[in-house]
């Protein structure tokens, strides 16, 4: 994805900062990547190059680590993130149906971000509340029993309010025109 205006400077500064704090020894590579991602939300190519340069290791090693571990993302997260639980319990009661619904509604696949960087979609493993399965994390808040109608409801609140609703638990049925 193309960088936004001024993003380059932010990237360079963050990387310098974090390397300054954690040092440049090889075993710090994963913690450094974690902190960079915490700061920027993802690992831009530029950041990976900077890290490789400073740690004096080949860029491919950094890229290798970044793509090996599930935690790292190479594209920017959306302003709102949907993480669909695909743990065993959720999958068995229709986690994939919820994922399908998001994919259909947002016209992106899991792991992608909408072009306006508004929404991103991911799958995660068991988030620890299988009783509420199927579960979706909406900006880190848990939504349980997510049916396709609920998916519509969640998206609708974002679209009408332009921001996340604060009230929870009220199930909006119907209202599926988006």
């Amino acid at each position, binding site marked *: 994805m193309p960088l936004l205006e001024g993003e380059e400077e932010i990237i360079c500064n963050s990387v310098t900062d974090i390397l300054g704090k954690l040092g440049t020894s090889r075993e710090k590579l994963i913690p450094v990547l*974690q902190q960079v991602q915490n700061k920027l939300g993802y690992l831009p190519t530029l950041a990976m190059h900077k890290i490789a340069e400073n740690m004096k290791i080949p860029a491919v090693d950094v890229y290798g680590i970044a793509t090996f571990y*599930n935690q790292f993302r190479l594209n920017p997260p959306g302003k709102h993130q949907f993480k669909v639980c695909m743990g065993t*319990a959720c999958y068995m009661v229709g986690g994939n149906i919820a994922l399908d619904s998001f994919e259909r509604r947002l016209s992106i696949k899991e792991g992608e971000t909408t072009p306006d960087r508004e929404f991103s979609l991911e799958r995660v493993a068991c*988030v*620890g*509340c299988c009783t509420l399965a199927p579960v979706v994390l909406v900006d880190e808040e*848990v939504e349980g029993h997510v049916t396709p109608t609920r998916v519509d409801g969640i998206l609708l609140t974002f679209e009408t309010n332009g921001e996340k609703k604060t009230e929870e638990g009220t199930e909006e049925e*119907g209202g599926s025109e988006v």
Partner: protein
Amino acid sequence: MKIATAAEHYAGMKAKAEQKINSLQEKTLIRVGAATCGLAAGAQKVKDTFVEEIKHKGLDAEIIEVGCMGHCYAEPMAIISKPGFPALCYGHMDEGLAKLLVEEFLGNDDPCYEYALVALEPNDIFPTFSDFPRDAYEKKIILEHCGFIDPEDIDHYLAREGYASLVKTLQMKPEEIISAMVDSGLRGRGGAGFPVGKKWTICRNTPSEIKYIICNADEGDPGAFMDRSVLESNPHQVIEGMLICAYAVGATKGYIYVRNEYPLAVQRVKTAIEQARKKGLLGSAILDSTFSFDLEVFEGSGAFVCGEESALINSMEGKMGVPQARPPYMAVSGFWGRPTVLNNVKTFAYVTAIIKKGAGWFREIGTEATPGTAVFTLVGKVANTGLVEVPMGTTLRQLVFDIGEGIPNDKEFKAVQIGGPSGGCLPEETLDIPIDFDSLEKAGAIMGSGGLVVLDEDDCMVAIARYFLEFTQQESCGKCTFCRLGTKHMLDILTRITQGKGSLADLDILQELAEDIKMGSLCNLGKTAPNPILTTLRYFRDEYEAHILEGRCPARMCKDLILYYIVPEKCTKLCNVCVGSCPVEAIYTREDGLKAIDQEKCVKCDNCLKTCPPEHNAVIKLSPPVLPEE
């Protein structure tokens, strides 16, 4: 003479903690279950309501957050201890109930028994946990304090004799600790069941200036969360176990490897480490003795294979998490080439209990070959989901039907999936086998680290095999050809079968591939990856055949083999919910007023079936996907 001071030092610390906890209990104490399961169900709002209401009413009460009690089905939960009443536990809490309890119980001495779940202490009025059927089976060693103490305040643990095992340890010789582990027969709970005493002996006997202890909290099974719950609910018991281990093998530095996706566990462990350090229970000259040990948290980046010990160590060294051939064993050459003991979260938690109560006590629990208890996350189609701890040797039937209280919604039991991606699906006829490492392996599954998913008639066995295979295929690190390509090939075949495009010959190929992958893989990820397929083939071959020969999914789960149909005789014509519920406008009203589904448009999202009012239940799934004649 150091030893006397350690005990004295501890006694002072404990007395202070007790005083603090006792003073807490003099007034009303509200404990809100705030592990991930509770928070997910809305514990934060419940806690906030308590705080607000109590402040609003000007009442005097203390509110603390505790971990998970294991009854996750009833979250959010709160325990209210009011002087003069037995401590009462309330389940399915919400803001309204919190408000009511503050008003009626705290304000008016009416405990609202109708909302209470259970009392914690014996009393004349209300049943306690010992009146629950599951109590007869449960035996809590690891979960003993979980849900009752504040994991973010070390004093709660200290007041319950926490760190007493450490003091005892400091008065023993390292060899004595190790022989206690050998005598206890404790086997590692990370999945493989390796004897702990043996591992520690090897490490102790390997001379080295520097040795490491690592606690494996990677917990890769996509359907399990007990290690996280333990760390979130009682991190100190694990830390204490690690201290004991360090003392026994002569290590000075330890790491807890927690996955980054567990932010709450990471934070609570870090808090616990800090508090232990402040009390002089971690760091140099622990409790004024000559023993020094310090701990750090390493945040894993979420790769299943990193749960494997050599891969875990590679990832800690900043490399890709790829397993290595053994020997040398970790206990001889591990982290940075130094002798390293790596054990699971629960394993360390047992260590603390064994030192406290003795190896003989531990041996009495469980079976001869596998003493102790087993901790499971009981989830899926079972009434009481949550964390359970039972002695080894308990049968699966007891676990599912007595403790879990069976299958909800009058559905029929089909199988238990045990051991996650490395485990297997066991049918009804195997339910009487006792739970222990060896019996489960004989049946084709594995103990694993404790994920247990109950499946009912609506769950397709081919689909679940495919689900786990998709997982292992994605998580294969790619080092071994058979694991990398073999799992891909198997996944392709399974996908074809779930689409109704398989052939009987595919089943033989699956069997063959399974053997090859088992042989040709270095680590247990590959070696066990075929298990979900092998067990389902062994016990549920008829389901595979139905997919292949009839294009039918018996559980009506595989999308390509079902269609949704509105039964004309059942449709009332009067309501419109299905039409509104359809995300793709595939449902229309026919000329005769009945609703019908445009099969071309239908995306099989299950919505109409869920929304059709239960008194009609007009929407059904058909497999094979053939429309009935009207």
